[in-house]
């Protein structure tokens, strides 16, 4: 219960802090006069990361883009995922430790194997370093500092991307939250 209240309070605090413009079409407003859905929030200038140092932020941005790359549709950075991760980590001390330890682990591993910083590696080399971490995370067996870090950044990247307007509407094609005069019967051939 306490956690839920905390997160709600956190949510309310954050609403005022960022620019929120909802461009999603609400045909509901046209049909029912009593719909008053307009999120009125003071627009604020887009600010940089609150928790991560610039070099750390570049690194987590790169990893987010390796998890969800730009293809013929936008990738994680295009959807603002790195700032989302920064916001979550900034308010969670345990995650701060996971990220700091994980970043250090990854840089060590990169230098050991390739004698270069992670950001200077080729894409193939970057994937080669991350894939074992991803396998451990997918099996639910993330143990080392690197694995725990990857499990965390993968979850946050997925959450951040697929709850963004880019991810939910443009990429996945969410079509709900509209007014239908009646529910369309299934006429597919399955």
């Amino acid at each position, binding site marked *: 219960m306490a956690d839920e209240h905390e997160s709600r309070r*956190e949510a309310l605090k954050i609403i005022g802090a960022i620019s929120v413009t909802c461009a999603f079409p609400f045909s509901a407003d046209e049909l029912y006069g009593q719909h*008053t*859905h307009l999120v009125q929030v003071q627009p604020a200038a887009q600010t940089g990361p609150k928790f991560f140092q610039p070099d750390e932020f570049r690194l987590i941005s790169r990893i987010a883009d390796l*998890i969800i790359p730009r293809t013929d549709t936008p990738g994680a950075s295009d959807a603002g995922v790195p700032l989302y991760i920064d916001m979550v980590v900034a308010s969670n001390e345990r995650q701060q430790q996971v990220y700091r330890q994980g970043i250090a682990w990854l840089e060590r591993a990169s230098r050991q194997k390739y004698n270069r910083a992670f950001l200077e590696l080729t894409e193939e080399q970057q994937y080669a370093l991350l894939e074992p971490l991803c396998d451990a995370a997918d099996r639910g067996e993330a143990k080392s500092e690197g694995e725990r870090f990857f499990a965390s950044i993968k979850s946050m990247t997925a959450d951040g991307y*697929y*709850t963004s307007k880019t991810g939910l509407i443009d990429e996945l094609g969410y079509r709900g*939250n509209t*007014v239908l005069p009646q*529910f369309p*019967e299934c006429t597919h051939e399955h």
Partner: protein
Amino acid sequence: MPRKTYDVVVVGSGAAGGTLSARLARKGVTVAVVEGGPRVNTSTDFNTHALPFEFANRHIPTMRPGKEGFDTERSRGLGGKTMLWNAVAFRFSQRDFKGRSIDGAGEDWPINYSDLEPYYASIEREIGVCGNLDHLKDLPDGIFLPPVPFKCSDVIVARGAAKLGVKVIHVRKATRTTPAGARPACHYCGNCMAGCDVVAKYNSYDVHMAPAARTGNLDFFPDSVVREVVVSKENRVTGVRYVNRTTLAEGEVHGRVVVVACACVQSVALLLMSKSRLYPTGLANSSGHLGKHFIPHFTGGVECFLTSLIGKAPVNDEGFLDHAYVPSFMHERKRDYARSFGIQFNYQNRRSVGWARSIKGMGKAYKEAVKERYPAFLTFSPYGEMLPNPESYIDLDPEKKDKFGLPLARRHVKWGENDRKIFEDMTRWSVEILRSAGAEILSVSKEPRTNHELGGCRMGSDPRTSIVNADCRTHDVENLYVVDGSVFPSASEKNPTHTIMGLAARAADHIADRLKRREV
């Protein structure tokens, strides 16, 4: 100000309090509804049509900025949980009332289906319940508005279930599928549980209490957190004491009858807090059974992707969340446990993609795997009936208090052998039905979770082992009633709200008769 004595003081304004108070007010009885939370405007106060990306942390708050309510269990708001419920409205069957006589486990209710049948019907006429006439022995039909068509995914699941001899029916919900008066038909936005802003879905404030208040017989005391039901030396309750939610000022409301209807756990907590010389362990607790026999439903869950929908174009199938239901089918089958389970499914909302983090891999292949599975995601949630056991009960925390200085209620739940057997079997059946429908299973819940809190003030004919009688009147105090899920002696596997409303309507008629005869 002259002291006003109401005929009836009702604590709580949800499904039970709302139904009961409105019915009494319409019969000319004066009623005070005392609610811990604020008045909530259904059409303007909830974040009904919000989407996650409108919020930096992607968490949609229940209320719009600056709107209060639904912050704690004790201060939700007028309408209680009916504001945010999913509106499933099932009648119990005779089997549900007489479980012990049938399989020897748990308890019988002291009433029969025939006692509640007219009240189920009356409520269906009042509030509008949609559904199909299915002629099932174990899930009685009602007076229904037209059902909502199945989603594509429901058709696929139903076909898979049929191969195993399992029937899938249209869900029955207290949501209008045709307009009536001020209430429009459902517009299928899928946001039922975020507060239905047009009241196509029933809530007790807009549908029951607000119209009844126009009689002049019903007064609201919002923001009034009841801390005690007051009992006199003559063993009669005289009213309630409350704390104002915002000012913390104390107040009292007086009545000839008091009805405690603030949802299972809080009703038990209020009686436990109402200690007096006559009732040192809690009001109406001479039996020592107050808080015992806590029997919440338990649920499991399977997440899956229907393979025939993988890679298909996404469609707008939010609907009114779940459109179909798997009614209990184990009663007719050989099994090694008492009671059974039913399955709700397909009530995920497509704006939430929390499962994406569980898809394996990374990079382009990962991104494609999520996208093609998006239209195919489906959740399956079986609900099982719990049997009472001595280690499952509600009590008060001896130390922790809330901001009103009132002790917090604690829930103690221990799963019994029968509960475990049902859980395993309902999980096994869920997976089998989904496999039969051609599903790729993503996750299967390993542990039961509670939902639909029931029991704690159970109904019975023996005052030594129960708290209220068949009319929801406490055995101990002749003008004190408890009406909500806490009175259920056995839980059934079916969603409880329709039965709570039926009990409330029946108790209202009973109270009105007694007032008329000047018995109270």
